[in-house]
Each structure stands twice: as structure tokens, then as C-alpha cells.
């Protein structure tokens, strides 16, 4: 199904960033402060990209120029920067008010070969809440970086717990900041889990923080809600604390997938099925109300409806959105472009999901991180009617060229201002429908 596009190794238009960009996963932990051992430009550039130009999320408690950074220059490159890092951490502990300090390395420190983890360990030995993740930008993208940071926290900070709290679930899912809707999305996951009677332990965003981190070892199980990002973390937790995990790869958007997801998780958690079914029935009601209301429009506006929808997004969003649009709204998919450099070993599973979007509908998948490749594929495609492009702000241009509709849902969401919107669950599906069809009704088809 997936066509191997000519293997292009360079990247036109940035749709993800480097491992160090996952410093945002630290910023997403309430009262955690990143300490960068990196070049002088990394911090600014990455916060511009992942917070400013992606939904205008802002610097938060200690982001942007507040982040301590060695700003490594020639001296650190030639002589090594461990001494400077040590000095910076010492002063960061005095100056920055935080519960957790996460040292992250950039390209310079890692190429030069500083043993930053060892420097951090020195502080751990003194009982300071300092951990270190080696996130040199060349070592991978921000998804890998996100795993590295969580991995460092699990490995260097978390302590085993005596008791297990029944019903407590750690949620590993959305990548903070990279997903411009991360706060709303995580909150919606919390609501869904709580609706069926579980206690969601969510690390990122308001209400999480070090308290949530400290609760991780107490959980009944870990939920990995994501095709691949975070898998190493739940495996690591299984090894360290014997906590079992459920890997659920589909982002639940809309009633079909969300109800399926809740049943799966209810079963895994050992909840009585009547309890879960009763909750689902309640949760579906408002969705059904609004969808009945929108049906007039969806039926009568056929002529302006998109002929095919294209997603240009990370594997998680692409799959969730496609399932919703196919199974709940009756739209038809065109090619789905998966841009997150998903490791080869997970690609087959994902392709299978797209092959079986519904019993009768499948979608072709192209794995690429290069917009030039995407553009060429789309130019080759013959569309009857207007396509709907669900991608990033970059894609306004190709949508225009194809005379299609466009909505930015994926990094960089540079043309929208996002606060607490969510696309997850029943509510999120309504929101996504609002956003998509607002694009339609505001254009003159």
C-alpha cells in the first residue's frame, strides 16, 4: 500500500523539530525547569517554533528566554563544557524556583562529548531534583526527544512505591506543545477515563507536575495512547516498577473510535461492562444531538463537500482524524501523508490500520518528512472536486493550487490561535467538525 517515494533525505518545510525541541515536554510539567547545555540559538529557535508559531502557545512559566542555558560558544566546543554546565546547574538551583530541573543537551555538547549525565548525577547524589537527557538535535526528532526526557525522569528521578492504587492510570499520549491542542486533548482524555470510573494520572499541563510524576509508580497500569511515541517509556516502567501497560494506537476521535477505546480500556482495567456501557451511552448523547442538527447541512451542502480528504500529519493525528471522517461523517480518504519519521518497525501496523479504516474503505499511505515529495504526489493526483487538506500552515499553498479546502491541525499550526480546544473524544469530534465545516461555509464554493 505505502509507495516508497524516491528516498529523499533532505527536508523541505519543517514539520517536526530536533530532539532538543522536546524541552517543551519539560515546560509542560508544572514547575519543572529545563536547563539547556546547548548553543546560544537553540532555545530561542525551538521555542519560537514549538510555542510561538504553533498555535501561539507562549512561553509559560519558565520557557523562552527564561530557560537557563550554557549558550556554548567556541570555548566549550574546544575545551569541553562540563565545568560550565556544572556552574550553570549550581546557579539554576539558586535562581530558578522549581520542583524538578531537567538538563537537556544540544548538538554542540553531544558532539564534543561532554558527559552531561554524569554532571547531573553529581547533583542527584546531593539529593537535588536534577535529571539529564541527552537530546543533541542530530540524534533524532522531537518525538524521540520526548521519549528521552521521560526516560531520564523515569530512570533518574522516580522512586518505587509500596502500594498500588486501584483504578489509577498513567496516561502517556499526546506530545506537549508539538500538538497545538495538547492541553485540551489531555484534559479530554482525563474526562473520558474518569467518566468510566478510572483515575487518570496526567503528567503534563495544569494539574499535573511533580505530584503526578510521583504517583506514576502507584498506578494500576499505564496507558499508551499513541502508535509508537512513548512505547519505550511504558516498557521501561514495566521493567522498573512491574506496571503493566495497554498499548492503544488509535487516537479516539468521534463516537465509533471513542466508544471502542473506552470499552477496550474498561476491559483491560477490569471494570464491569455495564458501568462502561452506561457511561458511553451518556457520553454519546450530546454528540448525537449536535450531529442530528448538522445533518441538514451535511446532506444539502453535498455539492460543496470535499471530494477526498488528505491528512499531512503525524501518524497519531492522521489515523484518528481519518477514522472519524470515514466512520462517523461518511467522507472518503485520499492519500494520507505520515510525516513523523515513524520507525520502520511500526509502519506495517499503521498501514494495516489505514488499510482497514472501515470494512470497505482503505487509504493509501505515504511516509515522508519532506514537503516537496508531498507536493509532487498531490500534483500527480487527479481530484474530482475539491480536496480537503488537513495539515499544517505550510499547506495553505498546495491547497490553493489544488483549489481545495485547508485546515491546519498539525505542526506548525501557525495560522490559528489555540487555547483549550480539543479534537479528542466526542466533544473533540464536534470541535473538529465545526472547524472543518467553518472552512467550507466561509469559502465561496
Amino acid at each position, binding site marked *: 500500500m505505502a509507495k516508497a517515494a524516491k528516498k529523499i533525505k*533532505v527536508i523541505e518545510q519543517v514539520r*517536526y523539530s530536533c530532539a532538543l525541541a522536546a524541552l517543551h515536554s519539560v515546560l509542560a510539567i508544572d514547575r519543572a525547569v529545563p536547563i539547556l547545555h546547548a548553543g546560544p*540559538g537553540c532555545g*530561542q529557535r525551538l521555542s519560537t517554533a514549538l510555542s510561538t508559531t504553533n498555535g501561539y502557545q507562549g512561553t509559560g512559566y519558565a520557557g523562552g*528566554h527564561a530557560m537557563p542555558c550554557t549558550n556554548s560558544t567556541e570555548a566549550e566546543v574546544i575545551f569541553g563544557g562540563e565545568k560550565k554546565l556544572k556552574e550553570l546547574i549550581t546557579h539554576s538551583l539558586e*535562581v*530558578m*524556583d522549581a520542583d524538578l530541573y531537567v538538563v537537556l543537551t544540544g548538538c554542540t555538547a553531544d558532539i564534543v562529548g561532554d558527559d552531561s549525565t554524569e554532571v547531573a548525577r553529581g547533583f542527584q547524589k546531593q539529593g537535588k531534583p536534577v535529571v539529564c537527557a541527552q537530546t543533541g*538535535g*542530530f540524534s533524532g526528532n522531537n518525538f524521540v526527544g520526548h521519549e528521552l526526557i521521560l526516560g531520564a525522569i523515569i530512570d533518574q528521578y522516580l522512586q518505587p512505591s509500596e502500594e498500588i492504587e486501584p483504578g489509577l492510570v498513567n496516561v502517556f499520549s499526546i506530545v506537549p506543545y508539538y500538538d497545538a491542542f495538547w492541553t485540551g486533548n489531555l484534559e479530554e482524555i482525563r474526562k473520558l477515563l474518569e467518566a468510566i470510573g478510572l483515575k487518570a494520572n496526567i503528567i503534563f499541563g495544569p494539574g499535573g507536575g511533580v505530584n503526578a510524576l510521583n504517583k506514576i509508580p502507584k498506578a494500576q497500569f499505564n496507558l499508551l495512547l499513541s502508535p509508537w511515541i512513548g512505547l519505550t517509556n511504558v516498557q521501561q516502567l514495566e521493567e522498573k516498577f512491574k506496571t503493566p501497560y495497554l498499548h492503544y494506537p488509535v487516537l479516539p476521535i468521534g463516537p465509533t473510535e471513542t466508544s471502542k477505546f473506552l470499552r477496550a480500556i474498561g476491559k483491560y482495567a477490569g471494570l464491569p461492562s455495564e458501568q462502561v456501557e452506561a457511561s458511553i451511552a451518556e457520553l454519546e448523547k450530546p454528540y448525537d444531538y449536535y450531529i442530528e442538527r448538522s445533518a441538514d447541512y451535511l446532506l444539502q451542502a453535498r455539492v460543496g463537500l470535499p471530494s477526498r480528504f488528505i491528512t499531512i500529519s503525524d501518524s497519531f493525528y492522521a489515523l484518528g482524524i481519518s477514522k472519524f471522517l470515514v466512520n462517523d461523517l461518511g467522507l472518503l480518504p485520499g492519500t494520507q501523508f505520515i510525516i513523523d519519521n515513524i520507525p520502520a518497525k511500526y509502519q506495517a501496523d499503521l498501514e494495516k490500520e489505514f488499510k482497514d479504516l472501515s470494512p470497505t474503505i482503505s487509504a493509501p499511505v505515504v511516509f515522508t518528512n519532506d514537503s516537496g515529495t508531498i507536493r509532487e504526489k498531490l500534483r500527480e493526483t487527479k481530484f474530482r472536486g475539491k480536496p480537503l487538506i488537513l495539515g499544517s500552515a505550510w499547506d495553505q499553498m498546495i491547497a490553493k493550487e489544488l483549489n481545495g479546502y485547508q485546515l491546519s491541525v498539525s505542526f506548525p499550526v501557525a495560522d490559528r490561535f489555540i487555547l483549550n480546544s480539543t479534537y479528542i473524544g466526542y466533544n473533540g469530534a464536534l470541535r473538529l467538525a465545526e472547524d472543518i465545516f467553518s472552512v467550507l461555509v466561509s469559502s465561496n464554493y
Partner: protein
Amino acid sequence: MSINLTTPEAQIRENRLSSITGYKGSIKDLATQAGGCSLKSGERGFTQTTACSLGCAQGQLVLIKDAAVVGHSAIGCGSDTIQSNINNRRGQFSRELEYTNINYINTNMTEEATVFGGAAKLREGIREAYRRFNPKVIFVTTSCVSGIIGENISGILEGLAEEIPVPLVPVHCEGFRSKLWASGFDAAFHAILTYIVKPAEKKNPNLINIINFSGIGRKEVVRLLGRLGLVPQFLVQFTTVDQLSKISEAAATLSFCGTLGSYLASGLEEHFGVPYIKSLQPHGIAGINSWLRELGKVLGREEEVEKLIEEETAAIASELEELREKLNGKRVVIGMGPSFSQNYTRLLQELALEVVWAASWHFDQRHDYGEIPATILDLAKNEKDIPACVSELQVHEINNLLRQLKPDLFVCRHPGMAIWSAKLGIPTIFINDEYQSFGYQGLINFGNRVADTLANPTFVQYLASKIKLPYTNWWLEQDAFTFLGEAPPKKKERITKAVV
């Protein structure tokens, strides 16, 4: 001081202009010490993330209309091109141009490239850039990774010269090389001066180069210079390569920002005979007067200029008086790049505001034509001295400074700064557009913006009442410059790490 166009790269500002990033003192002291050898940069024991050359270089080059940029780096270093694309759109909107995305390709250097080199990827990036964008020139920006592994950029580009029929231009802007991100402007302009600009075939006596950023507010410049029969051309963003190749035809170069323009304007003067107008920058009345008068002197149009100045000044006189009454004595702190900081210090005083502190993110002791910046000398002539610091985007310093000074207003420039004063409940003006206060009418517009900002501070007050700064109480009680030490004596350290 001279611009050397025979070397592959521009010297960094530390070495070329003796620029500094750490200092506390006053305007008069800065002006007195500048240019000599006595002013040394202080080092800090605690630093927050700053910015780098690559961002400044790339930000200029990707907005040249028919050029392409290949960023030879790991993918993260390409991240701020997203912001460049927003700038691109704003510029296209204001010029009523069709909207396009920028022409940028990143070579995505990964682990493998750090071990075996990234030549193959760079070649692919250049070939793809040529195939996809059909550009007139391809700039290759370097990065920390390509710099540390010692990639032979020039060699790779030379190897492709036969195959790719447009100039392949290296831009040396590795982030770790300089603490002054403005060195990145110089790197970009060095590339333009060495590879793009051609000697003038014939001079155009009415054409004036204006070095600016995105040029959103350029209409007023067109109007003012138009009154002198002059035609401005705005550099370098949104120009074409062909236009750039002919900027040597201009009768003079003006700059909106001494920090930005120093290298390109001096290079044009020294190597292409285009005089650089070494005036104050055109913010506020004294600034615009100086800008126009110096231009008039060079072009021999003093009389027209005097007439223009007289009319334009008269046109705003009553409004300016009203504003001065309204704003009289309000206390302001400034935090911007050096040229903007110095020019706004003067401008805010024209509005009868009291500048109680002038912070700049760095300080150039000289400009490329060898003199101390005119703006600082001008400020130093004032009877009253103003406390000043050089603060390299160190928001921990700025936060403590503002807490201590409690000004009525903070006026700043550089993305990511405004929030930190606002969190203290201090009304804040962020200067995004370089034309914000251009010339006569601009001063009035800006004055009104100040009045409006002071008129309703509820937003920042609410922020301050709810939001905690990320600092410990210990730090908040310290002097703002606790971590700013004296410049350390140059130590000979043992090489402990081999560079790959």
C-alpha cells in the same frame, strides 16, 4: 576598520567591532569607553538562552524572493523558518504580492552525518533546491553541527559548480562562533557582497538603498524621500537577486538600524563607492532630521531637505505638544538591540518621557566604518546621564531591574521579551515593526500608542496579580547584576576534549 571581501567569511563582531554582551554603567561611560580598549565584556556565572547568528542570517536570506536557502544542519536549526514564513506572508500581504512559501531545504544532519560528514546530503539539498525552486542563487547556511565536524562547505560547493548553473554561496553563521547573534547579519551580507553585488555599470542619482527588516511600514519612507525626488529601494528582504546585484547603482545607503546595516552599508561604500549615511537612525524628530540632513549633504540637496524638515515638523507641532503634556515625566525602561535602544532613548525623551534605564542586548563599540556609533555619542552630549546596561537577553537581570526601578512603562524589542515585564504588571510596548515610529508622523503614532498603553493597564495588572515569576525569592532579592562579573583574564586552559 575595513570590510574584507577576499575572505570566505565575515569576522565575528567580538573581533571586528569589539562588541560586548555584559556591562553595567551609564550612557556617558559607554560612550567614553567605546572604541578604545578599556571596555571589556563582563561574563556571567548564570545565563539564560540567547539567540544565534544562524537565525539572523537565515531570517534575512530566506526572504530574498527568488533565492533558495539550504540549511546544512540538524533539523532543529531549521525550525525558525516557520517564523520566517509568517514574516514572508506579512511582507507579501503588505506589498499585495501573491502568497508563496519560502524556498528552504534543510539537510537534516543526523548521527551518521556527524560521524561520516554530510557532504552527500548537502549535495542532495542543493540539487533539490535547484530542481524545486528554480532559484537565481542558492545560499548554504552553516550550523553548529557542520562547523564542529569541520565540513568542507566551499569544496562541496565548488564541486557542484559545473552542474548547478547558479551561484552557490556559503554563509558562515555557526551559532557557537559568536556571542553576538548580529554577527549573522554580517555573515548574510558578506555573502551578498561577495557573490551577488556587481559593480555599477551606471549610477542612478535618485536611487537610495534603505537597509531594513521586513519593511512593513515603508510607505511613509516612499512619501518623504519622494518629496526630495528620491526613490528608496528596501533591502534585503523581498528583493530579487537581480535587484540585489545592482544595489551598487544607488546614490547612497541609509539604514534603519545601525546594528543591522553596519556591514552591508560599509561594504557598499568601501568596495562599490555607494556612500553610507552615517547619521542617527530615523526614529523621532532628531533622528529623521539627522537622517535627511546627512543624506542632503551627500547628495547636495541641503536646501530641499531643510524645507522638507520645516514643513513636516510644523505639521505635527501641535499634536506633539499635546502628547508631551500627556506623557510628561512618565518613567520608562528600554530593552532592545543597541541601535534601537540608543535611538529610542532619544525618541522617548522627545515625547517628554523620562528614560530611567537603557538596556541593550549587546553593544558595538564601533561600526564598520571605524567610528563609534553616532547615536551613543549624541546621547552622551546630553547633560543628564542615563544608567545603562548590556544584557544579552538575560531576563533574570531585566526582571530584577524592573522590580527595583518600577517604571511606568517598559519598551522593548526582541521576540520573547515583552512577557517578562508584563508579568510584573508593568505596561509594556513591544516594537515589532521597525517603522513603528518612523519620522514625523511615526513619532505621533508612537506617542499615541504609549498613551493608549498607559490608559488601560488592566491586562498586565491581572497577569501580575495571578502569575508567579519562575525565580526563587532569594534571586528576586539580589541585585540585578549579581552574576555579571568582570571580564575574566584570558586563561590558557588545557585542551580536555578533542574536537571531532
